[in-house]
Each structure stands twice: as structure tokens, then as C-alpha cells.
């Protein structure tokens, strides 16, 4: 598959009074043209920082892109100037957030916010952009778009705001859409509408999607490939089938076991993961998951395992995959 995005050895830190927070510690992944990938992992593992790094949305300082590259159609976004990035944002890569109110402008009508990108990036006339805004609202399923286009965000319901944000994000037909927990704040029936909409757009427009979520069900529904992050690193990645039916990393196994299957009986207790992720102010030298891992060995505390191919469509970073550890696979 032709690649649209390649993130290579990305390191991102935050300068704080307490010291340097190593939020992202060597992340590698790629996104194919027209592909939807999911990023999952515990709160604080670096999903949002990774996503926002792609658009360089984080203020420097306190953020520093320490190392690595983010190739978008072969060009390194980390090397681009702020002015060049402005041409990428909204036009070639768009982002939608969990809380639409933080990214919608409360003082501007929804229509104007959609039209803004069109007049800026596509040099459309105001009238043409307005007409297109109505079409986009209709496309994302907002009833009475001619009337709604002149309303302000606070006049919309939560689900409608999320749709409006998607309309803004799609106005310029970006090649890549990054969605950071786009449905977490929504009810399941509204979530189903938004996910359906995103799938339709992916199919119709060939948009590539990066979907960040903590809901494994959403990933199973939406994505072709999954990236599992833990403590600022990718610990496992592969096709959805590989990750759900053949997980290799103990953290991924733990995540999958801690949600009940629909056919799970109450006599069968859930298997939680005890403990908490490491403090990224002082990340451990070895595997970030070692302290919580049932199968941890001495080597895990000392050295960090690399992301290795376990199958052609599946990578995992764990010392258990090392030839010398075979037979010790724990659970």
C-alpha cells in the first residue's frame, strides 16, 4: 500500500518546573493511502501528543521535538516552517477533537467557520464558500442546513457540534483526517451516527484516518490496523485481526482481557491490570510495562525491547519474543 504518513523514531518532551516529561519516546508507525488506523492505550500514554505533533499544534516551548521525522507524502513536517505548516493544516491534514467547543469559535457562525478554509486555501468567493458550507452540513447529516449554517455553535447539540467540526475538517478534502476521541463525549446512538459518517467519507473520498480512542469496540468497528501505545512508545501494532485474535504483547493481552466479552458469564471474573503506568519524568530504563507485567524477566527491567516483526502484518516489542525466552511465555 502506498504510504501517506510515516512517523519515524519520534521523541517529544515537555519542559516543566519538575523537569523534562518524556511524553513520546521513539514512536514509529505509518498510515497507508485510504487506510484507517486506530491508536489505543491508557490515559497519558502519548496518543494526543503524537497526534498533535503531526500538525505541530503544540507550543514550542514547552514542547520540544527532540528527534525523529514525520514524513507526509515524503516530506518531513518537522522541518517545515510555521508558515508552511499553515498550508498543511486544514487543507491536507485536518484534526477533530474530543470536545468540539474547544476548537469551534463561539463568536462565529458555523457556516463562516466552514467557509474560512475554502476562501483561504482554495481562493473561493464568499458566496461559493457559503454554498459549499451548506452542502457540507447536509453531507454530515445536519437537518435544515440552510438555516443551521447561520447559527452559532452554542445553538447546536453535542452531536451536531461534532458533525459541524467534521464538516470544517473535511471542507478542503484533506488527505489525512486525525480524530482524537471524536465520540468519547457522545452517546452511543450518536456515536454510531458519527462513526458511520466517517466510514462513508473514507470510502467516498479516500481519506486516510488516524482514530485515537480508548474504546476497543470502536477500533474493531472502524480500523484496518491498530497501534497500541504504552508509556510514550508503540508496544504492538498489526491488523485488527492480528491484534484482537493473536495479541502478542502482555499489555495488549491485558487490555483485551479487562473488557467483558458479550458472552462472558458473571462467574468468570474480569482480569484487571494492577498498578499504574510509569512517571514519564523519570521513565524506566527497561520496558515501560515491566513493573505491571506478570511475565516480566530480569532483562525487562534493564533493557528496553525493540519493536520486532512477529508476523508480516504484526509487530510487538517484548523480550518474551526473544529466542532465548521461548517457553517462558507466561500467560
Amino acid at each position, binding site marked *: 500500500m502506498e504510504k501517506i504518513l510515516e512517523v519515524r523514531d519520534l521523541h517529544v518532551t515537555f519542559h516543566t518546573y519538575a523537569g523534562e516529561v518524556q511524553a513520546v519516546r521513539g514512536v514509529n508507525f505509518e498510515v497507508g493511502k485510504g487506510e484507517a488506523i486506530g491508536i489505543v492505550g491508557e490515559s497519558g500514554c502519548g496518543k494526543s501528543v503524537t497526534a498533535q505533533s503531526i500538525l505541530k499544534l503544540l507550543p514550542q516551548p514547552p514542547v520540544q521535538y527532540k528527534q525523529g521525522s514525520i514524513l507526509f507524502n515524503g516530506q518531513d513536517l518537522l522541518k517545515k516552517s510555521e508558515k508552511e505548516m499553515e498550508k498543511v493544516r486544514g487543507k491536507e491534514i485536518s484534526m477533530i477533537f474530543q470536545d468540539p467547543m474547544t476548537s469551534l469559535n463561539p463568536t462565529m457562525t458555523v457556516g463562516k467557520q466552514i467557509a474560512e478554509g475554502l476562501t483561504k486555501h482554495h481562493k473561493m468567493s464568499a458566496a461559493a464558500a457559503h454554498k459549499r458550507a451548506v452542502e457540507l452540513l447536509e453531507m454530515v447529516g445536519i437537518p435544515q442546513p440552510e438555516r443551521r449554517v447561520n447559527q452559532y455553535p452554542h445553538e447546536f447539540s453535542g452531536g451536531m457540534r461534532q458533525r459541524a467540526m467534521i464538516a470544517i475538517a473535511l471542507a478542503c478534502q484533506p488527505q489525512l483526517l486525525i480524530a482524537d476521541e471524536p465520540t468519547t463525549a457522545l452517546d452511543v446512538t450518536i456515536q454510531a451516527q458519527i462513526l458511520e459518517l466517517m466510514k462513508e467519507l473514507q470510502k467516498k473520498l479516500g481519506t486516510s484516518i488516524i482514530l485515537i480512542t480508548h474504546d476497543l469496540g470502536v477500533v474493531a468497528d472502524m480500523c484496518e490496523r491498530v497501534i497500541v501505545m504504552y508509556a510514550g512508545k508503540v508496544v504492538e501494532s498489526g491488523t485488527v485481526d492480528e491484534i484482537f485474535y493473536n495479541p502478542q504483547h502482555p499489555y495488549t493481552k491485558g487490555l483485551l482481557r479487562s473488557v467483558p*466479552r458479550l458472552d462472558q458469564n458473571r462467574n468468570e471474573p474480569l482480569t*484487571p491490570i494492577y498498578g499504574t503506568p510509569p512517571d514519564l519524568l523519570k521513565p524506566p530504563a527497561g520496558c515501560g510495562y515491566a513493573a505491571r507485567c506478570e511475565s516480566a524477566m530480569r532483562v525487562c527491567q534493564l533493557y528496553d525491547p525493540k519493536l520486532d516483526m512477529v508476523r508480516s502484518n504484526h509487530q510487538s516489542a517484548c523480550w518474551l519474543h526473544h529466542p532465548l525466552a521461548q517457553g517462558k511465555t507466561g500467560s
Partner: protein
Amino acid sequence: MGTQTQETLIEVRNLKKFFKVGGQTLKAVNDISFTINRGETLGVVGESGCGKSTAGRTILRLYEPTAGEVIFEGKNISKLQGSELKAMRRNMQMIFQDPYASLNPRMTVGDIIGEALDIHGLATGQERKERIQELLSLVSLNPGHIDRFPHEFSGGQRQRIGIARALAVEPKFIVCDEPISALDVSVQAQVVNLLEQLQEKMGLTYMFIAHDLSMVKYISDRVAVMYLGKMVELAESEKLYEKPLHPYTQALLSAIPIPDPEVERKRERIVLQGDVPSPMNPPSGCHFRTRCPKAMPECAAMEPVWKEVEPGHFTACHLYN
């Protein structure tokens, strides 16, 4: 299974809770009736704003009911006042959604749990301290951490503190209002397992409010579905998930993404049109009719009645009249 018995612990009769909002009436809970058996877990699901929390709070008398009755162990508690109300409160506790906001950050864990003991004068001095330590062990926290503050604990641990506080007064009934929604998936299982163990050990009865329908199915003996202040369906959880009767329940269940790619690929989803209407101004007749794929003319004209369509399976829908 849980520790469900056939003995009714709580009976809720035609309960209503209305709020006055800017001169208008908001019918947050509008005439719901059901029972909960001793030792049972009743799950309550439904979309944001449908009245789940208000129902829980009104049953506990944290809100004064607008109308209706709550019978606890055969006693009508809707009108109790003063010391009688206080004594009754010991039997019924609540665990909240947000383990961060529901614990006072300036109080130690010992004082947070101890406060509940003090209110009801249950223990003092050395006995009080021992009781707190016992409660901490009961929820699998280190009893040595009695003098620590909430911020020194993780989210899952803070939720355990909330549970220990609720258990301090030895309640019979606990309303768990989204006790795991704010927690990471990996941590949710800890809290759910703990609630199950405690139920087994102490014969507790739960009303478990949640968004996560697969967790609700797992933990509940029976599940109730709410929509815009009304209860629309109630059945044994297996039955509800296998054979939902109300079109809203059908849509809700079909909308939950299941963490299994094979199942997801094969699934037919009922995608509802539109948003939940404003509770200030709900549609006439059946409140769900504006989004219902099976709506008929009578749905606008008449409110459907709540009735038992099959043994133990209740619903309010004109399709079953």
C-alpha cells in the same frame, strides 16, 4: 450469578422528579415503577440526560420526589423526616462517577471514611481507626495508607476509597452512579470485580448506572432502559440482550461497538436519525416516536403503558398492545 433472592428490597411506585428551570418544568424522571430484589444488581442504561442519576438520587431521598413512593423493606420512606430519615439513610449509599471530584482533596483517606462513621456515631477513638483500616483492607487498599491524601492515589484506588466510604455505614443498598466511567479500561475491571466480591460477601443490593452496555450486561441480573425520563424496558439481562422488545433498546444495543472485528464486520446496525429531543419539551405520546423506525400514528396520540409483556419482561411500547 450474584446473590439475588426473590425477596423485594425496594419497590419504586410511580416515582416522579421534576425540576423548575427558567419558569419551565423539566420532567427528569416521569413516572417510573419497578422493584429491586435483595442481593440483586439492577443495571440502568440510557443516553445522557435521560434521568438515570436523578432516579438514583430520588430513590435515596437526596432529591425530594415530586410524586410517587419508595418502599424499602416494606416501609414507605418517601415521607420520612428528621431522625427517622437519618436512620434510613444508613441503609442506602451512593458511589459517584468522578473519583477525583467526589473526594475532598484536603482530607486524609482516614478522615474521608471516618466522616461517614462520625455522622452516624458508629465508632470513636481506637475502634474508629481499626474500623477504617478494616474498610481499607476490604477494598484492597493498604491500611497503612490511612493518613494519605486522595491525590496520592491512582484513579482506580480513589474509586476504591469512595467504595470504602459508602461501605463504612454498612448499607444494604448502594446506587453506583457510573462508578467506572472515568477510569481507564484496564482499571475498570478492578472496581467491577471488587463490587462483585463485596456483594457476595455482604449480600449487598446494587443499582448500577452506566453507559457501557457490555459492562452492564456482565454485572447485572436485570437491566432497565430509560429514555427521556421514562423507563421503556426492563428484563433479565440475558433476555434483554438476546431479545430486546422496545425499538429504542434494539437501536441502543445495535449501536454499541463490540471489541471483536469479526462480529463488527457482520453486524447490521440500526442507526437512529436525529438527536434526543429536549426534556423540557418532549414529543407527545411516546417520547421516542420522533426517532423510532417503527413509529405508528397512535404513537403520537397516546402514551404507551408500562406492562409486563412476558413473565418478568416489561416494556412501554404500542407495538405490544
